[in-house]
């Protein structure tokens, strides 16, 4: 075999045959495709668990008054729904896509650090096992919101908070190892001729996301460590009585938290930038500006954190700075939306399921972006802060944003992964159910928020009843259509029609030069990168 294979000292045997049999394959695998699959199924399981929690919330809010759950449990549901969706569903799903796609897109035989890759996945089930188990402990699980503001998460936290802290440490370690792997793969293992500015945009967005993760996950680890010290070792980082400051918690948390929201959306930008050119049958409009826009967004994400906390008190100069810096993000984001639309302009468009999800992404993410601009206006934010308007905003950017892009990616690359096509009719049914469900769920929340309904409450005033009932109906439609999605995917894997190697006639990129399904070991010889295959 080639030199590339030989460099994986001690792995030589593996490179000559297929996967191991049975459970051992999944436990000990160092294959990027296996690990990608593990990540994707794990994130889907978390998506369903987090979704069930969302449905508990929506069932309780279907009508005013307390019907199904106690307020204490309701708080645990909102908290765990947020934590599981952010750290368990969206992030691991993108890492799964990165594992499957980055080596195939840059022409590498595997990820740079395959053993670490295995470790970073297998940490996750333990992290979430620990976190979810706290729900069954005396005193209950985390109930302080996914932002775990001190002193709610320190002085007034349930006893199980220490498990929560440990789980967050594990998730952070997993993300950091995953990011190091992604960066090392992209920087060191590209096929000859694949220069940085010829990389597919999905690879570019992941490279930048990985740097964001490296910069902020350690800060998250730091802030939960400070909590641990405050709770168990008598320090006063966040305790005013001992000379600390609870507001400082919010500053440090959001210094992590704001880049974190871009960590969840930049790879989505990458996915959509791969899919739209394929179905518009035109190269991506403004490739270079797309790369610069992503880099600018990543940079700006570090200097806007305090827009989450306008109401805690800050001097006028600070409010103005954070307001303008936040609004500035709309510029590179606008460049991206413009480029996606220009790519479609006069293209020979067809509307297969991945394209439908990608177009819905562009429209609905833009709506979420606009409500974000409204929230950035400091004086207006005093009215919107901690209302359902905020809930509507971030669900618009995360559900039809991040989640739709992940679903689009699954439909788009599934034929390459398993060698079989999904059923187009079933895919379209799934799309329309999801599209209607998501809008019926979250659009009314803009109105209840503007009318003053606070977030994170199990009961509400009567005037919000109609909007909430509508929201709950939408949530159940959306929730069950994701169960249907699982059926569509399993149907494709087991009974789908054989896919061609190219799959989509407008597809460009190295992954489409491989057979379908992609062989267990691909690109053991570095491929020649032609301009036609670069830049999709």
């Amino acid at each position, binding site marked *: 075999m080639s030199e590339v294979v030989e460099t994986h000292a001690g792995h030589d045997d593996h490179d000559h045959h297929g996967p191991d049999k049975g459970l051992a394959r999944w436990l000990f695998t160092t294959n990027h495709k296996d690990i990608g699959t593990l990540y994707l199924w794990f994130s889907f399981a978390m998506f369903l668990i987090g979704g069930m929690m969302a449905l508990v919330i929506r069932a309780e809010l279907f009508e005013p008054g307390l019907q199904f759950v106690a307020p204490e449990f309701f708080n645990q549901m909102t908290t765990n729904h947020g934590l599981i969706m952010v750290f368990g569903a969206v992030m691991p799903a993108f890492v799964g896509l990165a594992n499957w796609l980055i080596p195939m897109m840059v022409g590498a035989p595997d990820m740079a*650090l395959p053993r670490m890759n295995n470790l970073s996945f297998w940490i996750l089930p333990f992290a979430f096992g620990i976190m979810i188990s706290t729900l069954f402990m005396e005193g209950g699980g985390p109930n302080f919101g996914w932002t775990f503001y001190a002193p709610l998460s320190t002085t007034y936290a349930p006893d199980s908070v220490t498990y929560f802290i440990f789980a967050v440490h594990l998730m952070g370690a997993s993300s*950091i190892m995953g990011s190091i792997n992604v960066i*090392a793969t992209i920087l*060191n293992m590209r096929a000859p001729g694949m220069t940085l500015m010829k990389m597919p945009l999905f690879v570019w967005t992941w490279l930048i996301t990985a740097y964001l993760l490296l910069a902020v*996950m350690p800060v998250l680890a730091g802030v939960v460590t400070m909590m641990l010290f405050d709770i168990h070792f008598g320090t006063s980082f966040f305790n005013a*009585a001992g000379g600390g400051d609870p507001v400082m918690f919010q*500053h440090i948390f959001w210094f992590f938290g704001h880049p974190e929201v871009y960590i969840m959306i930049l790879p989505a930008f990458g996915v959509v930038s791969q899919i739209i050119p394929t179905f518009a049958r035109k190269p991506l409009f403004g490739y270079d500006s797309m790369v610069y826009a992503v880099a600018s967004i990543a940079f700006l994400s570090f200097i806007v954190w305090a827009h989450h906390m306008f109401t805690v*008190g800050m001097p006028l100069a600070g409010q103005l700075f954070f307001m303008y810096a936040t609004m500035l993000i709309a510029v590179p984001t606008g460049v991206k939306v413009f480029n996606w639309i220009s790519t479609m302009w006069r293209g020979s468009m067809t509307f297969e399921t991945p394209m439908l999800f990608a177009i819905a992404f562009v429209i609905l993410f833009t709506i979420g972006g606009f409500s974000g601009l409204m929230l950035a206006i400091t004086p207006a934010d005093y009215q919107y802060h901690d209302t359902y308007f905020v809930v509507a905003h971030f669900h618009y950017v995360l559900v039809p944003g991040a989640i739709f892009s992940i679903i689009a990616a699954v439909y788009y690359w599934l034929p390459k992964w398993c060698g079989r096509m999904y059923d187009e009719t079933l895919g379209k049914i799934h799309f329309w159910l999801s599209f209607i469900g998501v809008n019926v769920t979250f659009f009314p929340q803009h109105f209840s928020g503007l009318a003053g309904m606070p977030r994170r409450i199990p009961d509400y005033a009567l005037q919000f009843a109609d909007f909430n009932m509508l929201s709950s109906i939408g949530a159940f439609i959306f929730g069950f259509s994701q169960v249907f999605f699982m059926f569509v995917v399993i149907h494709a894997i087991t009974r789908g029609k054989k896919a061609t190697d190219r799959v989509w006639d407008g597809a460009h990129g190295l992954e489409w030069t491989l057979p379908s399904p992609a062989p267990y070991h691909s690109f053991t010889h570095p491929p020649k990168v032609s301009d036609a295959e670069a830049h999709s």
Partner: protein
Amino acid sequence: MQQAGSNKRTVAKLSLIVFGMFGFGFALVPLYDLLCEITGLGGDTGGQYAYDPATQQTDTSRLVRVNFVTNTNGGMPWKFWSEKGGVRVHPGELKEVNFYVTNTTDRVMVGKAVPSLVPISATEYFHKTECFCFERQLLQPGETMEMPMRFIVGSELPKNVESLSLSYALFDVTDFADEKELAAAGSISG
């Protein structure tokens, strides 16, 4: 082999970022305190002020109202009040106001008051020459303590500021207190 070497170098460099940012997270704590001290953010009125009557010019043409707010933090059973809700002072004039606390419980407790001043733009001109908030208060069961607070509003106070509000939040810090100190105090009362 070249590949493995460059991967190792990449991992080493990236690990430096990770450890650096973990350290930076903790460095944010002193940086935050420093920023608050410089800007007066969070209504931090600073430490004891060295009063020199020779340098202070009393500006009798202006009167500024200083309001006092006393709060006990959740779970703190003490009573905490000030003799007046507010006073009018000339900038540059030294003023004294008494605050009181009563330990309403039947055990020895330690309290600590944390000040906060609004508007933030006035914090750097508000000076305290003596304040109970500089130290902790140890009170016997049922004991009441009178605590004088002396302050000067600097004559450079911006013209648009006509009133200030100084708020104190009283915290129960018995758990943070030295056990020997508490035991000694307990034996005196016993």
